[in-house]
């Protein structure tokens, strides 16, 4: 007991690998938030008037709102006047025209992260849009994609090149006043990715965004908008890291997905923001609003997430199933170790007829980790024949962590079928001893058992992400059986 506990403790205590800082000359605006700051951000990005108005409306709405308090997470109040809302690498001021123009320091950072833009893009066939603090620094493969009519670029660029699309879809899934953090994001978002797949086009490669918070005291507020037009298909990957800092940093992103008739969007996230140290000092507050809208019949939106970082996670990737026969999926692995807290889950809103949703959530809690699954399945009166299947499993490592499950089920249509299964388990002494008796180190044993627990979710991830996710779990876990 004591021995395996201590090995688990060791495993859990492994250090964060991406905690380096890149020294770049930054263009930073003063701390604090006001209408002037919103105007300044908009001006820096040379935005059209309508977008400024949109931001200001969001800001004014935000002023009337209070942060949500219902989540099962605890942290001191955030001083929104003590934060910087825009930071960009200086050399990027005029925007890079190609990879050659990107600051070599920045490229080195991506190499450290294991994503050399050139090779990775070419070898893996992945088009990467890398967001560094507030601006999108380089978008690879743009030309190849544009041949088939796909638009994939930074959000700020899209505002200028495809204003009609932005105007049509921005805020159409997550309205400016949706929630406190979404409103804040709408007011001050600095960049992000935009993607449009025209009717009938199957995106020939995985699209990818890599987010990194580098500058100190900076909030990151990126905005992602993906529109798959009728019959289109796209698979989108998102990865995140941040330097190690003693103070907390806020990440309040908004992701909006729109799937038209028979379109499919698969959105995968491997989130490895800095989780803070063992005592819970520092780390990212990841307060993110992600929502997909199945607007057409037979549309399908699938969220797959692996959440291992962040001091606090508040995140509910959701699907609104408006189109008849549309499908929503949510596959999640969330890990909380040390003092990490996560309140995460999904919302499946069934509106169309014969809509179907699947939720598979795997929560792993270790150390003093606090984890809550919070899921809503709502079947509207109109959703004749709707079906939902929810499976919600928690794995506890050690005896100081917690797992909670808060399922909300609202059904207004009698023909609907809603299933909910939940389990809580721990890695047993017997499993651990069995693996060690076969020659595996305790670290490898825990990692193998946890990966087995997460298998149903990992198999939904694109290959290269699945490998990364497995490694990440191994690293993030080092040390926990009880």
């Amino acid at each position, binding site marked *: 007991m004591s021995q395996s506990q201590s090995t688990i403790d060791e495993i859990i205590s492994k250090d964060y690998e991406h905690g380096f800082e890149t020294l770049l000359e930054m263009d930073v605006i003063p701390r604090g938030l006001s209408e002037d700051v919103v105007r300044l951000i908009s001006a820096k990005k040379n935005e059209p008037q309508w977008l400024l108005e949109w931001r200001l409306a969001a800001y004014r709405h935000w002023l009337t709102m209070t942060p949500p308090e219902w989540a099962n997470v605890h942290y001191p109040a955030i001083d929104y006047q003590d934060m910087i809302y825009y930071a960009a690498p200086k050399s990027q001021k005029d925007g890079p025209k190609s990879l050659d123009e990107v600051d070599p320091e920045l490229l080195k950072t991506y190499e450290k992260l294991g994503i050399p833009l050139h090779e990775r893009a070419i070898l893996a066939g992945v088009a990467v849009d890398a967001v560094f603090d507030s601006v999108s620094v380089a978008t690879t493969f743009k030309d190849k994609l544009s041949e088939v009519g796909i638009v994939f670029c930074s959000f700020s660029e899209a505002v200028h090149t495809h204003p009609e699309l932005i105007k049509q879809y921005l805020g159409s899934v997550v309205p400016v006043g949706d929630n406190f953090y979404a409103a804040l994001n709408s007011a001050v978002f600095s960049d992000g990715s935009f993607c449009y797949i025209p009717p009938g086009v199957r995106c020939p490669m995985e699209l990818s965004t890599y987010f990194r918070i580098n500058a100190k005291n900076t909030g990151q507020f990126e905005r992602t908008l993906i529109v798959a037009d009728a019959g289109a298909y796209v698979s989108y990957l998102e990865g995140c890291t941040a330097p190690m800092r003693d103070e907390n940093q806020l990440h309040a992103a908004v992701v909006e997905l729109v799937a038209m008739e028979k379109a499919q969007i698969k959105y995968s996230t491997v989130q490895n923001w800095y989780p803070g140290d063992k005592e819970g000092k520092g780390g990212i507050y990841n307060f993110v609003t992600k929502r997909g809208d199945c607007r057409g019949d037979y549309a399908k939106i699938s969220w797959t997430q692996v959440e291992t970082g962040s001091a606090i996670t508040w995140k509910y990737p959701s699907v609104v199933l408006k189109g008849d026969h549309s499908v929503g999926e949510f596959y999640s692995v969330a890990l909380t170790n040390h003092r990490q807290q996560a309140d995460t889950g999904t919302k499946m809103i069934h509106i169309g007829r014969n809509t179907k949703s699947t939720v598979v959530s795997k929560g792993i809690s270790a150390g003093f980790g606090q984890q809550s699954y919070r899921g809503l399945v709502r079947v509207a009166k109109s959703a004749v024949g709707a079906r939902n299947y929810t499976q919600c499993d928690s794995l506890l490592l050690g005896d100081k962590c917690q797992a909670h499950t808060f399922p909300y089920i609202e059904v207004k249509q009698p023909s609907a079928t809603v299933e909910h299964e939940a389990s809580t388990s721990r890695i047993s002494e017997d499993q651990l001893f*069995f693996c060690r008796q076969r020659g*595996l180190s305790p670290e490898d044993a825990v990692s193998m058992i946890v990966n087995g627990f*997460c298998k149903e979710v990992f198999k939904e991830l694109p290959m290269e992400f699945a490998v990364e996710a497995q490694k990440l779990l191994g690293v993030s876990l080092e040390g926990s059986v009880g």
Partner: protein
Amino acid sequence: MLHIKDLTAEVDGKPILKGINLTVNAGEIHAVMGPNGSGKSTLASILAGRDGYEITGGSVMYQGKDLLDMPAEDRARDGVFLAFQYPVEIPGVSNIYLLKAAVNARRRHRGMQELDAMDFLSLVKEKVRFMEMDEKMLYRAVNEGFSGGEKKRNEILQMIMLEPTLALLDETDSGLDIDALKVVSKGVNSLRSPERAMILVTHYQRLLDYITPDYVHVLSAGRIIKSGGPELALELERQGYAWLTGDQKDAPSKGVAQ
């Protein structure tokens, strides 16, 4: 190869082993028999390095090393294998993945190259056939939904893949029908070699019809009370454990066999 000297151990303050002495040489098969609660499985578990036992005295030397000082995984890599009485299930982890991890952990430890995917696959398929198992079980989660017999076959499959130096079989025969018992015995017998030793922990003589031991020891109340050749097992089968343990309750200090 293995020298157990005056080994005493307790669980939660309760003495279970009260002075075990046993020497096992390479090439030998020893059967440890005894009634329920005599400490047979505890002995196997302690040799394999399971936590939760307090060693209160004595020593165990394995190939010249202090076995009790080694973590369980090092013992395994050094060739100590325990076939479990109750093999655990590991959901989501395929059998073949576990086998490969185990085989390569042992190879790395011996300074050998890891087997590549192709070599490993052809080796494992050969062994699966030998154990008269379905190849599909390689891709099922470890022991999940396996019948009792399948679990035991799976243990022996792991054993013949890992080619241990010292194999400990804990009640491997329990819960097996006669066909499964034959296959399991075939697997065990295939490993008999002058370099290898085995300790069979069993309640019944039945297993020994198929695997002939060189020595039989009777364990009772934490001590070996009698040792002999294969004929001792047959005698036990005829007369029952009371034949030996009846005395023992009255005079616990009597009859340490070795």
